[in-house]
């Protein structure tokens, strides 16, 4: 069965102007999110995960930020061609966001019920009473008693606040939710509760989701597809099973090896040498080449293109490009 594409990003590039040059935050990024699919977006600090999310929502502050190239096709329409006014009606209604820090993403001076009502009144044609009723239902959906709708955010714990944020994001039944590190600020047992809730809601509502995280464990729990980001680009994209069982890119492999494992005793962790490149640096070849143990001459000179290892598995690496080419030539 061919799934319908909900979001397709083509050759997206985003830059920021800073004092000592230009930061290349996102470079030639290609991605697809299908209907009802959860995409995990994994990378280290500064890899451009959040910038990509902001670009999808057209929330890149300009200046200094600029989307220099590309298309973001959502539900058949290019979001980059939309006016600010059109975007405002899309955000919250069709695309909504869950932020990392539930402590700061709620308005401390409004009751949580009112914060959901605000969203509903803006995007749906309902009156206040209906909106309040819907808000209470939303709270129940995320596991909060309706009596608490009149409470303020400070009366909730961290995990409960994140539930409220999820309720707000879901209020208008969006087609796509972008969750930026939704559980990073929470303790493990609370994180497990919130992940459980998100997985439940995903099945119940069938919303597509982009989950931004640095934790490969969380991706394994909830995602269908995974994109690994490095220095502003996706280096590998695959279904969860393929990525975890047969990682291809040297960076992906290194990432897996540097996590301490619970089921294996090992004396030393495998390290990836060095550090990610400065985002102002222009690297002529593959961005990972200075740290790559399998670096070849060509890696330092040219940027690798996309090589498909399978229908739903691509990698940007010359190791595989060569193989593919070599195979074709023979």
């Amino acid at each position, binding site marked *: 069965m061919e799934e319908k594409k909900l979001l397709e990003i083509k050759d997206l590039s985003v830059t920021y102007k800073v004092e000592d040059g230009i930061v290349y935050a996102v470079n030639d990024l290609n991605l697809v999110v299908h209907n009802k699919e959860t995409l995990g977006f994994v990378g*280290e*600090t500064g890899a451009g995960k959040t910038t990509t999310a902001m670009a999808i929502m057209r929330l890149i502050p300009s200046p200094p930020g600029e989307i220099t190239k590309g298309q973001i096709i959502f539900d058949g329409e290019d979001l980059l061609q939309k006016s600010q006014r059109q975007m405002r009606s899309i955000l919250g209604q069709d695309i909504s966001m869950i932020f990392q820090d539930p402590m700061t993403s709620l308005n401390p001076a409004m009751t949580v019920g009112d914060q959901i009502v605000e969203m509903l009144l803006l995007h749906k044609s309902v009156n206040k009473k209906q909106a309040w009723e819907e808000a209470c239902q939303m709270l129940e959906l995320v596991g909060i008693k309706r009596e608490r709708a009149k409470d303020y955010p400070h009366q909730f*714990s961290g*995990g*409960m606040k994140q539930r409220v944020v999820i309720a707000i994001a879901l209020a208008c039944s969006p087609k796509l939710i972008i969750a930026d590190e939704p559980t990073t600020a929470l*303790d*493990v*047992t*609370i*994180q*497990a*509760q919130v*992940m*459980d809730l998100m*997985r439940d809601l995903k099945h119940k509502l069938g919303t597509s989701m982009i989950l931004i995280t*640095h*934790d*490969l*464990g*969380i*991706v*394994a*729990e*909830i995602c269908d597809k995974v994109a690994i980001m490095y220095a502003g680009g996706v280096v590998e994209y695959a279904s*969860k*099973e393929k*990525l*975890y*069982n047969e990682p291809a890119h040297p960076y992906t492999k*290194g*990432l*897996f*090896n*540097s*996590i*301490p*494992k*619970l089921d294996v*005793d*090992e*004396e*030393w*962790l*495998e*390290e*990836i040498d060095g*550090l990610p490149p400065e985002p102002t640096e222009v690297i002529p070849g593959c961005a990972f080449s200075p740290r790559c143990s399998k670096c070849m001459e060509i890696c330092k000179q040219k940027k690798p293109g996309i090589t498909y290892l399978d229908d739903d598995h691509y990698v940007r690496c010359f190791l595989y490009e060569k193989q593919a080419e070599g195979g074709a030539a023979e």
Partner: protein
Amino acid sequence: MSERLIEVNHLKKYFKVNKGLLHAVDDLSFYIDRGETLGLVGESGCGKSTTGRTLIRLIEANEGEILFNGEDIRKLDKQKLKDFRQNMQMVFQDPYSSLNPRLNIFDLISEPLMNIPEYAHDKKKVYDRVTELMDTVGISRRLINSYPHELDGGRRQRVGIARALAVNPEFLVLDEPVSSLDVCIQAQVINLLKRLQQEFKLTYLFISHDLSVVKHISNRIAVMYLGKIVELSNRNDIFRDPLHPYTQALLSAIPIPKADSAERHRIILKGDVPSPVNPPAGCRFAGRCPYATEKCFQEEPALREVEPGRFVACHKVEK
């Protein structure tokens, strides 16, 4: 036979707050052998950092004994404590806020040396020691005049480690030393800590909320919940066969980076960690425990040795 370096008996630290007493650390007893790493895990607010800080007297305990090489350091006066501090140092969680932004790397690493008479007046000696330390922790010497804002998180944490090592301590309290670092950098720093431990025969108290990191680095692990140790044993026992219901839940809550991890059985705890202010009688975990009985709400379980070296505080666990 292994030698006890640290022995803690009935350590208590309460903070006065508006509503009563906050039981941050409530009657802890444990020991750390020379050269070993004791991992201390628990969720935020369970008292792990307070334990670490009380242990080296950065904050004063209310009650209890802290024996370091047999000597109770709670009885030391100010001057003696200052000398004693050379033996125990701390590495903090956040390398962004634990380094003075107005000092360069040389100043930062040499600062602790100024308390030692042999270095205080010998600039050459200080310089040699600082460069030696930079080599030890893996910071390139050309960065000696750089300021913290010029460094990334991993290098900053290396500076923090170099500072702690400067005075040749025997014991280090590592308070979430890798929590704010990316996984690849985290691996580098963990390996560094292990290498240093072997090289200098260091003893660690490793505080973290990340069980996979703690498992990797520790010999024994203590699990804390609301100011109490609920389980303490060597790391393989804890991970293979956790006895306390809280440990079981904690372990099953860790997201595992494997494709089929969503299918495994998980214990999802209900509710939040209760407030440590005026905690209720009985087992502190009872309110969230799936096995709680009447007895658990009334009588507090003591930490008992159920097998040699395995301690657990739970009424349910027989033996």
